[in-house]
């Protein structure tokens, strides 16, 4: 990620320390993860200690300090999905792609995350791949669903 883009994002927020989280969210959404150089640049421009930025980027779930896979798999583990068997779905997804929530596989193909609620509880359990919803997903259907992603 180049310095100009980072500076542009910081300038969009008037270089205010109060906008730190908004700036980091914009960088994350632009680049899909937060490289260390970006954090150092933000720290320098906003005059916020790196130790604080480090805490913020690990405290809030939206941030990633490592590159993400080509496909982002989200399994909803909200309460409604939980009582409808989300754990079994998650277990099966983990078995199929071989990574745990929060991880990315070595080929950078899949990243797996759990989400607390997607607000489509009527469809539970729900798995979302790259923004596409797979509602009422059964463990038996996961393999063929994930096969469609290269």
């Amino acid at each position, binding site marked *: 990620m180049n310095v100009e883009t980072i500076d542009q994002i910081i300038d969009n927020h008037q270089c205010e320390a109060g906008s730190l989280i908004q700036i980091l969210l914009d960088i994350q959404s632009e680049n899909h993860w937060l490289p260390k150089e970006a954090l150092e640049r933000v720290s320098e421009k906003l005059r916020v200690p*790196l*130790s*604080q930025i480090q805490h913020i980027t690990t405290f809030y779930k939206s941030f990633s300090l490592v590159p993400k896979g080509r496909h982002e798999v989200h399994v909803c583990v909200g309460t409604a999905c939980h009582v409808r068997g989300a754990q079994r779905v998650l277990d099966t997804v983990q078995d199929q792609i071989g990574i745990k929530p929060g991880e990315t596989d070595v080929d950078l193909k899949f990243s797996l995350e759990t989400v607390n609620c997607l607000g489509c509880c009527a469809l539970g359990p729900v798995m979302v791949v790259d923004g596409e919803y797979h509602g009422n997903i059964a463990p038996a259907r996961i393999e063929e669903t994930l096969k469609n992603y290269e």
Partner: protein
Amino acid sequence: MSEVLLQIDGKEVSAIEGATILEAARSVGIIIPTLCHHEKLEPYGGCRICSVEVDVRGRTSVVASCLFPVEKDLVVRTVSKKLDRIRKSLLEMMLAHAPDSEQLQVLAQEYGADRERFGKEASFCIHCGLCVRYCAEVKKKDALGFIDRGARKEICFIPEIASRECWECKECFPLCPTSALQAAFVLCKALSFPPETGSQEEVNISTLPVREQND
């Protein structure tokens, strides 16, 4: 600044408006145990060992005395069966991290805390935050900070700053109630700046033996 009259353990105490219960109690020699409190630092309210009972507007609640401001006619109890139970459990949970901490052991004896009640935790840190806050508030160096949240929260040195600042200072080491901070720093430094390569790879103490979740 006006004076406020309140009652602590049945004793009339006068305190300056804006003072905390802890300050008011200490001013008259009433001792409330603390772990994360330090006079040079902003009150933190993390360890909760200083919890006391207060009666406010007809309701009794447990509050951290290091943070709760004095109020007119506030009734405070620094000792009660409930507080004893709370302090004992809190100590036991912290002892699972740092069973050999002298400071914890002294308190454990007082409150009858069993250091083996909960299984040993991999991390020594009890998150009093003294090191982090001292470095930020007093030294203004921010050489270390917290990372992550909840049970995964850890302290972590920023190697670039630590390598520059820490050996000259080391003032946070004696603040650590578990005496283990120094070890953490040494390890962090050793891992971050191996003499032969000078690699800048960042290593934090959370890469110490990984805790098995829910184990």
